[in-house]
């Protein structure tokens, strides 16, 4: 008896009691017809709690599954374990000060996040960016896309059972980190983009590194495609899993490669080109099946297209300035700061006050991040701090679709589905 009481007290939630109760209650309320098994001697009906600390949930995602045998009857996702209040922080920082925080949202592709914020601020404050800077940004974005997709590929294939693949993709990511280290001075959260341009130009050394890596990575991709596209186990694990039609996908708000895998070629690089994406030639890979395998094909093809874009960027890039030459809108170069009084004053003013978009202005700009549409909505009150900065994060939208997709799937496919949708909790939790 004493032991029973002890066990019962252990099972009671100790934290966020109301929160736990609300989740379990909503699990009951989601569908109107709940079959109640009066006598269930084999206990096929159960509620399974996965996460938030679970290796297959890619961070701190908590999935609560109601199971009938091996089938998922309904499920609820509980997110917010990585909520840091980034939007609140943004209201108390200048736009440039906020830049390093964006690195930590989708921490697998920091360069894309920087570019998303920069383009949004440049749009609202009407800042021209030199052509060379835009090409450098594109190279950074595409490298970030490949880096993000590599992590997705490694973990997704690992979720499906092939552990060694993870090591191979991480070997390539390691090379990418070395490139980013030369590119912007940091391996991981690089913050290389600046409002009005980029921090520094590509050195000849970096250019050579990227070009060499692109050639090698092409060969690597061919090998991986050979390995996976004929792999029976991988096929059986992913085919016809988590199928979603184009209509459902649009209605539930899927984003990025997940939406394109249902057959809708919604890519902001084509629809609403930013940087110089309208001047390079690339394709938007789509599939019609909408299952996990289709998502895999889409992302693999996207990596090939990214390599194409990088090569074209190097061909089209001309010598020139890398930051707008306007001291009221962008940071002056370090040469100016160290050797002229005006440069130092401007540097101080930019750090202290920063860019001030017109009061009452509000606008939105989105880029095609690796995970989908990453947009920043800025409302300005005329000061250097945004009045409200809203992040439309692709992972948040994709996770919402995951809740919809998981219903009716098998419990063993949960991890593969999470891997296939590629959510990043830092991005969705903000």
């Amino acid at each position, binding site marked *: 008896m004493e032991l029973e009481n002890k066990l019962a007290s252990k099972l009671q939630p100790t934290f966020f009691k109301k929160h736990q109760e609300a989740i379990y209650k909503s699990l009951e309320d989601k569908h109107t017809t709940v079959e109640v098994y009066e006598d269930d001697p084999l206990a096929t009906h159960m509620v399974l709690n996965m996460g938030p600390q679970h290796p297959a949930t890619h961070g701190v995602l908590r999935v609560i599954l109601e199971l009938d045998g091996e089938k998922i009857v309904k499920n609820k996702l509980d997110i917010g374990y990585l909520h840091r209040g980034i939007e609140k922080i943004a209201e108390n920082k200048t736009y440039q000060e906020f830049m390093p925080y964006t690195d930590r949202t989708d921490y697998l592709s920091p360069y894309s996040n920087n570019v998303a914020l920069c383009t949004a601020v440049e749009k609202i404050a009407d800042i021209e960016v030199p052509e060379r800077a835009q090409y450098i940004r594109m190279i950074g974005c595409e490298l970030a896309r490949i880096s993000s997709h590599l992590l997705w590929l490694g973990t997704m294939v690992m979720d499906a059972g092939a552990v060694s693949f993870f090591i191979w993709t991480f070997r390539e990511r390691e090379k990418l980190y070395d490139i980013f280290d030369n590119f912007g001075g940091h391996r991981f959260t690089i913050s290389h983009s600046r409002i009005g341009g980029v921090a520094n130009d590509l050195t000849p050394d970096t250019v050579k590194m990227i070009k060499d890596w692109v050639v090698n990575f092409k060969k690597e991709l061919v090998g991986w495609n050979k390995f996976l596209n004929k792999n029976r186990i991988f096929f059986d694990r992913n085919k016809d899993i988590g199928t979603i039609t184009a209509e459902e996908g649009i209605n539930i*708000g899927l984003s990025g490669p997940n939406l394109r895998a249902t057959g809708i070629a919604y890519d902001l690089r084509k629809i609403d080109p930013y940087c110089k994406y309208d001047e390079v030639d690339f394709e938007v890979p789509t599939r019609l099946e909408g299952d996990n395998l289709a998502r895999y094909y889409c992302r693999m093809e996207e990596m090939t297209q990214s390599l194409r874009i990088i090569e074209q960027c190097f061909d089209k890039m001309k010598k020139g300035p890398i930051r707008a030459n306007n001291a009221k809108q962008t940071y002056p170069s370090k040469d100016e700061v160290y050797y002229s009084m005006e440069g130092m004053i401007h540097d101080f003013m930019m750090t202290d006050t920063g860019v001030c978009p017109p009061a009452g202005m509000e606008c939105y700009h989105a880029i095609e991040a690796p995970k989908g549409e990453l947009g920043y909505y800025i409302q300005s009150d005329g000061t250097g701090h945004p009045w409200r900065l809203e992040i439309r994060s692709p992972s948040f939208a994709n996770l919402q679709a995951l809740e919809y997709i998981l219903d009716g799937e098998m419990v063993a496919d949960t991890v593969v589905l999470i891997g296939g949708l590629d959510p990043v909790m830092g991005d969705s939790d903000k």
Partner: protein
Amino acid sequence: MNISSAHQKIIDDLKQQYPDDILEVTENRGDVLVRVSVDAIHNICQRLYDEYRFIYLVDIFGTDRFTSEDRFEVIYNIVSLRDQLRLFIKVRCEEEDPHVQTVTDIWKAANWQERQTYDMFGVIFDGHPDLRRVFLPEDFEYYPLRKEFPLLGVPGSIELPSTTPDTED
């Protein structure tokens, strides 16, 4: 103002259909924002969905204007894939007991987006199937993106685990 002809056509039609409910049309750097009255939001969204194929709901979020009247604003970011157009719809609601009608029956994607707005600003969406907080636990009593909420948070507002491990007795 510099509104594209495609946007202008939609706005003209909306003005004709709902003459009293279209309150303000603004354009900022090519983004068109239409402010509508809070009672008409569902009908207008339905019409945009049916007639102009704004089938993709990108985002719903709130802002705090910190004014005595019409304090909270809810902004809908919708995209028409057919015409490749983006449109922003705004509604404003009162500080005391802010209510907006849900659009989850038009776009399923509105579910979490509305929950996020509720979580951050406390705007209640009438008719929402599952209006719970999305990021913060239900036990939390404040709405953190309101302007009066301090940046450093409210001490003691959330129960945290003790840093010392339980001693086994």
